[in-house]
Every structure is written in C-alpha cells, then in structure tokens.
C-alpha cells in the first residue's frame, strides 16, 4: 500500500473514532445534559462520518487498488494532485467542523464566509481526486 493511500485510510479511521465518540456523547447528553454545544454538532458529526470516514476510506482504497499506469513514471498519477485532494478535503472538513457549531449558535458573516470556503475546498478536493483517478478506471493489463 503506497504512503498516500495509507494516510487517506489512517485519517479515515481517525474520523471514525472521533465521530463515534461525538455520537456517544450526543446520546449520553440526552440523559445527562452536558452541554448545549453537543446539540449543534449533529450536521458536523454526520459529515465527519460520510465525508471524513466513508468517502475518504473509499478514496484511499481506490488510489491503492485501481489499475496503475505501467508506462508512466508516476504509476498512480501525480502525487501532487493526490496530496492536493487530501489537503483540500481535510482542511475543508475541519473548517466546517470548527465553524458550523459557532455559526448555528450565532450567525456571523465571517463564519458564513469560512463555511462557504469549507464547501469550496471540499468540492475542489473531490474534483481533483476525480481527475486523478478517472484515467485509472480501465481494464487491467
């Protein structure tokens, strides 16, 4: 497994743990009422699971397992593009995770702008990954 795929998969596992820990706290909060913070984390937690865990794991496995280019010096496609997708995806996701609870508790234009930026970063990430992987969705040779 190449280092980039390992980073994708390990990051996905980290999100899995964080999202489940948050989910556990959110469930306990129904009983013990820790903090109103937990009630505004619902969408962020959902996105940690769907984007950070499931989608990132799928991207890491695709990068690892899809047929490689035999004729090129970079058999899995440009590393720079893979790192760009990884960076944009995780910066975007973390930015959303950090800003969304504050936005939901008291909307401010600068928070809204950061949330918009997080959306742009995630869309750039998946488009970059799509460009990276598209040519590798081909028969094995």
């Amino acid at each position, binding site marked *: 497994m190449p280092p980039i795929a390992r980073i994708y998969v390990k990051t996905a596992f980290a999100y899995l743990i964080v999202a489940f820990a948050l989910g556990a706290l959110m469930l306990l909060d129904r009983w013990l009422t820790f903090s109103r913070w937990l009630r505004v984390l619902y969408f962020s937690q959902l996105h940690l699971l*769907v984007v950070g865990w*499931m*989608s990132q794991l*799928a991207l890491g*496995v*695709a990068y690892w*397992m*899809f*047929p490689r280019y035999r004729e090129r010096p970079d058999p899995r496609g440009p590393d720079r593009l893979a790192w760009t997708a990884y960076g944009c995806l995780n910066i975007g996701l973390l930015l*959303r995770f950090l800003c969304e609870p504050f*936005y939901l508790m008291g*909307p401010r*234009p600068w928070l*809204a*702008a950061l*949330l*918009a930026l*997080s*959306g*742009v970063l*995630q*869309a750039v*990430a*998946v*488009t970059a*990954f*799509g460009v990276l*992987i*598209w040519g590798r*969705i*081909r*028969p*094995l040779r």
Partner: protein
Amino acid sequence: MPTTSRVFFKTAFAYLILGAILGMLFLIHRWLPLGDKLLTLRASHIPFLLIGWLTQFIMGGAWWLLPPLPSRPLPDDTRPERRGQHQRGSEPLFWTTFVLLNIGIWLQALFAPLYSWTHQETFRILDSLSGPFLVAAVLTFVLNVWARVRALGKG
C-alpha cells in the same frame, strides 16, 4: 477491471462531484444567499452521496473483487463450465441493478425538489416511486453476488 465495474465507478465519482458541488452551494448560501429554492435540493444531495456515490462505489468494487463463482458448482453438474466473466455472476442482472439504482436516485433527486417548489401531486408520486426502484436495485445486486461471498480456492 471489468466494464461493468468501470461504469459503476465512473458513475459513482460523477455523483460524488455533483453531491459535493451541491453541498458547496448550500454552504455558500449561508454567506451569499442564492435563493430559497436552493435548500430543497438537499433532497438530491443526500441520495447523490449516500446511494449514487458510496453505495454504487461499493457495488462496483464488490463485483470486481469478490471471489469468482466456481467453474462447476457441483461435481455431477452437466451444465457447461463457467468461464471468465461468467464466474462473476449474471452480467445482465448487474446492468439491471445499475439501471434500477440510477432511475431510483434520479426520481428522488428530481421530483422531491420539484414537489417542494410546485406542490403538484404527480411529482410526489414520482418521488415516492424511487423507493421501489432502489429496493429492487439492492435485491438484484445481493442476489447476484450472494454466492460469491465464499472462501477462495474452492472450485
């Protein structure tokens, strides 16, 4: 990688990009309002990502990578041996899964927002028809790959 899986993967990546662009628009909308109707497209964002991207990607991967069916299921079987792609299961059934799944996604993605905008009963009916299509898609998929969930090297 077989053609069937390639089509599933490419379609899945297209949904991922489409779903992420919609998600981006929802987040931009909090900063620069893009119109109230935009938020009704959440009904498209969710099936694009959960079914179009994740589920379809997993199906394509399973079809590609699960152990092949044995060339001859039973020693006294007189039917012709399975060879090559036939050891993956029924390809027509896999295409049926693809068609049912994508019709189901688009019925929901198009008609749920249209119903929210217009409140026309026809759109609600078309939206609710997505459910049977999606159930049929997953049933055909599971039936097709069930026997391939087995130990490698037997048969």
